[in-house]
């Protein structure tokens, strides 16, 4: 099995895995970083969202061999202690119910706001459309994204 050196949350980490292994399973099983969640395995639900060079990417469908020197950010590295404006907004609005999808929601929202700091309501709804919340905390996700935009 080949070695891959990844830049994750600002640190260089080398792993030895099969080339087709999705980034999700490298994070979860090799590096025991359990914040990025498995939901569907086919890039349909967004639970596994991470940032690759600041863009939101579904890590369940990103083979490790396709990553070279891109910088990867996971929920664990989004901020020190959960102080990113999106995380703070999630807390203030009390978004989660079961909480399982929320890391992915936060990663999608934070990448989106970086690209579009002052979004309209429709743009928020469109940007968050790819992330499923089975508890349907959608009203609060929408509010939290708005609040984070206001506060950043």
């Amino acid at each position: 099995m080949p070695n891959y050196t990844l830049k994750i949350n600002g640190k260089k980490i080398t792993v030895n895995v099969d080339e087709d292994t999705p980034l999700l399973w490298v994070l979860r099983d090799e590096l025991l970083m359990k914040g990025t969640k498995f939901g569907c395995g086919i890039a349909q639900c967004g639970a596994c969202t991470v940032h690759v060079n600041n863009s939101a990417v579904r890590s369940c469908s990103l083979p490790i061999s396709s990553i070279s020197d891109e910088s990867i950010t996971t929920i664990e590295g989004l901020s020190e202690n959960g102080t990113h404006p999106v995380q703070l907004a999630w807390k203030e609005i009390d978004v989660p119910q079961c909480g399982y999808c929320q890391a992915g929601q936060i990663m999608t929202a934070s990448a989106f706001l970086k690209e579009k700091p002052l979004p309209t309501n429709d743009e928020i709804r469109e940007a968050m459309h790819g992330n499923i919340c089975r508890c349907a905390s959608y009203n609060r996700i929408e509010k939290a994204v708005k609040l984070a935009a206001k506060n950043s």
Partner: protein
Amino acid sequence: MPLIIESKKQLNWPQKTHKLLTKKFTMSQNKSLSLSRRNFLKTSLLAGGGMLIGFNLLSACKPEAILPIDISNLNFNDFNAFIKISDEGYVTIFSPNPEIGQGVKTSMPMIIAEELDVAWEKVSVAQGFYDPKNYQRQVAGGSQSIRFGWDALRQTGATAKQMLVNAAAIQWGVEPNTCFASQGIITNATGDTLGYGEVVKVAANLEVPENINLKDPKDFKIIGHDITNVDIQKIITGDPLFGIDYSSEGMVYASVLRPPAFGNKLASFDDQITKSINGVTEVIKFGDKIAVLGSNTWAVMKGKKALVALWENDTKLESTDDHNFELIKILNGNKFETNREDGNVESAFKVADKIIERTYESPFLPHNCMEPMNFYANVTDKKVHLVGPIQTPAWTSGKIAKILNRKPEEIHLEMTRMGGGFGRRLYGDFAEEAAQISNIIKKPIQVIFSREDDMAAGTYRPAIKYRIKAAIKEGKLTAYHLKEAAINGNMYGLIANFFPAGCVPNYRVSTANYKSNITTGAWRAPFTNFLAFAEQSFFSEIATELDKDHPQLIIDLLQNVKGTTDERIQYSPERMEETINLVIKKSNWGKTPEGIYQGFSAYYSHNTHVAEVADVELKNGMPVVKKVTVAVDCGIVVNPLGAKNQVEGGVIDGIGHAMYGDLSFEKGIPQSVNFDKYRLIRMEETPEVKTYFVENNLSPTGLGEPGLPPAGGAVANAIYKATGNRLLKQPFINQLEISKSKLLG
């Protein structure tokens, strides 16, 4: 001068204090509740400092409960709920009920903290343990946690507070009734103060007082206030919390190949390719399943896909067309069980001016918890260690003990936070699989379902059809007959006594079912999740027929059951009427601008009354749900912030599944097994949900489920107003697309 106390026997009780402590107080709240706290609460000093109060939450709910141990020897495992008060006055509450997202890990400790009277900032919450040796039930399901826990949790908090007050009184040498406690501080008549932490050593050795005064709800400082989810920090920073996040040294991952069709059994298999995959270490057969084991999830999932298995038919392979045929055959036949019958239904139909009859149809639904099913098991000669997300730890532990032929006390089950439940995690099949596999390979293992496994090996909401028939005479509803044809079981006991039971003089509910080999079970708001839609759509039709306003028709009917002596009636007509009036007011019912079409629905379930109004508009010929206004009577709202979250989620979940949820079968094989084909509601399809609570001081009832059942009906009735189409089948999307294509020619 504080007394120095070594043990209970050396207590120097002031005479009057002793009398006071044994005097019977009248409880300020529920007088019918008579609990012997000695049977459910025990205190102990902690070796590391502080006081531990153990109580058995569930047995505390029953007056006859007796702890299964000698209470003089407090053992952490003998209680399922605890309050720890440190020497510094910090309070840790071990929440006993499994958290599936319904908020009980926050709301139940709030109730204890309220009566204990501590500042919420000084409280932390930890997940309680489950001990199969001593406990019968610890369940998250049926929206019952708060309802059953309310009195017991308040009594526990108040008892602990009284013990601390009594301890302070002893230290001061005064009577306890001259002292009061608030926000973790006890104050006496002369203004001296002691913190809870300063008296725990004394309090831990006191007798547990009987008959405690509970707070007047107007004095609540925590209950009724917005409290943020206690796990929020861990959730937003990605800390391991869920079952799927658990791992242990030497743990291997397991992916299981199960029969692809209901009715299949395993004939033979070839694992040659699987075994050649990097990371795959073992392949084992157990029953009709094959487990692929290895060092990472990806390897075992790939290994499972590479298995070549031959299946043979064990029982009939059923398709959705078969189910539709069988259920309609049942509805057309006369083999029914009667759940409730009032008056003379047959003769009322004979003399009716008009009869309305409709058939409502629903498909199977998978639960689709975002966290796929998973469980950890480590079976050794000494014990069976299980960790994972499960709503029924007792039942599952018992089943595993039986399967592995182990003693119940050898099973140690740890509950994790659950990435959704919706009923799926009531069934421990995934935990059983984990235990069976670990038992064979004698290693710690974690079974992980892929999404496809999760959707294809479900315990689905069964497909159900309702046929409702109403008789109208002289402008009045004179008879109502509801027939249910369901797969693998029927509505449970009390539902037949929900509305409109008692409101219509001639009333009958009859049920029948078709036995299928497809596994079915509870799904958020079992049976009522679809029945409420059928019923409230039907009442909308009756209202149109009678030229009446739908909510007014329901209010008029409710008058007939007021003052009833029929104890089977489950709902309160007064509370339902108030709830309906609140939603009418808050939704601007009947006063909306042009282009907005409103639909109404009201339903009582899980002890909570809910009324909803959906606002729909048309966009390119398709209805769009813009807003849902909800009125809820769930008694005292413990945590409004969490309660609103439950209602918002329940309503959108209800709309999503009514609109899109559809699982069909072809020769026993589920036809959609991932989110590319199975449609769940997403952000752009969600309405704004506005929730209003009926204000009262009645004991709280649950909220995990009751918001969901009325949603489908409210939307369907609004779509009728917008389009003139009556939606009789779920998912709505299929009918809407047909009518849209007709519309567009």
